[in-house]
């Protein structure tokens, strides 16, 4: 079954360090990902840059603070601001993470791990439905890197992720590096994870680098994608066909040209494996110039 999600090629994150280069050169790039919170609370330069970028490229909004797994109520102010930004930017994709970020009104500013239980599936699927109804669009949820697991989990991570997507109607943003990190940290086969994800749920890939902290891997987004993760990417494209792809690089951010190299590498694999000359599907290929 084919994915219903738009295919907009291989993009990179829109980061402050690159604003000047991007708005001066308007480089060749399939699309940009914007961190929602960096723009939904700002009417200054960040939003101005994002609007300029949106005039020329497809954009995806990727959030870090939805806290879909929290047992606190959903934050109506957050949702209103996210909806206002989405209505203004008209993104190809809106996504966040399958995690919780705070409880009892306090925010821990991290993508915190959930126990993989039926209680959590039911709780989160219901909240995703509320969010999608409010935003008037389907969202993607991303699998996160984790450093602990819970004894009372009753299912593997891939089953948890799939169950929430199937019950709520949301899609999956599959971070292949996070799967690799978790596979190392929690000792499972990353290809077991991939083999259990239904293709029709996958709307996007994230590719990133991580750091070996001795005893565990840490998802730092501070380095190039490693070869085993490129191999997982190749496998995923071979089995699932074209999927929108993002190169993430958020720490020790290199010059924009280095990011372009990494996106070009992803694009070359994408084109080779999927047998298409252009990784971008026609309806979204034309920039809004």
């Amino acid at each position: 079954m084919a994915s219903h999600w738009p295919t907009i090629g291989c993009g990179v994150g829109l980061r402050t360090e690159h604003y000047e280069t991007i708005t001066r050169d308007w480089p060749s790039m399939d699309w940009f990902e914007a961190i929602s919170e960096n723009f939904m609370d700002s009417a200054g330069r960040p939003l101005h840059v994002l609007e300029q970028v949106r005039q020329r490229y497809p954009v995806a909004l990727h959030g870090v603070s939805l806290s879909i797994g929290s047992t606190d109520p959903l934050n109506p102010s957050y949702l209103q601001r996210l909806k206002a930004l989405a209505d203004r930017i008209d993104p190809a994709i809106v996504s966040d993470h399958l995690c919780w970020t705070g409880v009892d009104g306090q925010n821990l500013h991290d993508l915190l791990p959930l126990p993989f239980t039926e209680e959590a599936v039911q709780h989160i699927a219901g909240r995703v439905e509320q969010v999608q109804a409010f935003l008037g669009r389907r969202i993607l949820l991303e699998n996160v890197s984790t450093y602990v697991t819970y004894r009372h989990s009753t299912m593997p991570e891939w089953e948890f992720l799939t169950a929430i997507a199937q019950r709520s109607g949301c899609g999956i943003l599959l971070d292949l590096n996070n799967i690799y990190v978790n596979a190392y940290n929690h000792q499972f086969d990353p290809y077991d994870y991939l083999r259990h994800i239904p293709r029709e749920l996958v709307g996007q890939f994230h590719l990133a680098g991580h750091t070996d902290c001795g005893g565990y891997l840490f998802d730092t987004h501070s380095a190039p994608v490693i070869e085993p993760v490129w191999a997982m990417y190749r496998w995923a494209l071979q089995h699932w066909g074209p999927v929108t792809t993002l190169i993430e690089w958020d720490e020790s951010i290199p010059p924009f040209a280095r990011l372009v190299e990494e996106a070009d590498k992803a694009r070359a694999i994408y084109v080779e494996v999927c047998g298409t000359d252009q990784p971008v599907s026609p309806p979204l290929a034309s920039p809004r110039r």
Partner: protein
Amino acid sequence: MAEPSLRDVQRWMKTQIQPPAGGAVRAAQQWLNPQRDTPGFERLHVYAHGYLARMQESLAEVYEAVHHVVGEQAFAGLAGAYAARHPSHDYNLSFAGRSLPEFLAAWPRTAQWPFLPDLARLEWGVCQAFHAQLQPPVDAGQLASVAPSDWERMRFAFQPSVSCVASAWPILDIWEARQRPRQAIDIDVVGRPQQVLVFREGLTVRCELLDPAEQRVLRALLDGAMLGEACAEGSAEALSAWFNQWTRRGLITALHL
């Protein structure tokens, strides 16, 4: 033993991440799987460390000059103490430092740099101005149309980007030196009060020195005072010049009778 609920897990995890993190280790041992050869609860340090690191990074971004003045080590201590005293209630990390100016007033090391609370107030104003939604300003014609008899009772609304900070210290000079090497900064801080206006012009945040009388009038107007109350001092000529300046810069957004 009954399985913990999702809420139980989250409340307990919060105690392990937010400073002063720790305690309830036996529960951690029961709820978390070992990770390779490491007890699960020991891995929680990744999250506890990450919380402090993110708070410190965010505070250093907003309070660049405070960070520069106190140096890396003292700033790390400041960020840790602040995070312990002021848990974040904001989903946006950029705003988690809103209480730092007040916190600095009671921070023991402020005795070494007594201008820190005012410097932080200035930097918070800059942060607010950077993100503010600018409103259409009133023009000189609208001001000129006010009947002279109404002037005393007028109140004014200003752009959300506008703030002013009055300090007994040269905070604008210190703020402007934030990108110079510390050893190259030689600012005489004694007996040099400064009053600073913060606002945004287009996409650019500006910080400018104010005349003390202008600062007092502007402060009162920003706090909602009527013009008659705010202008107990200052000549008509000075007042006219200030209003011309504020109007030319688009700082006033509404007039209220």
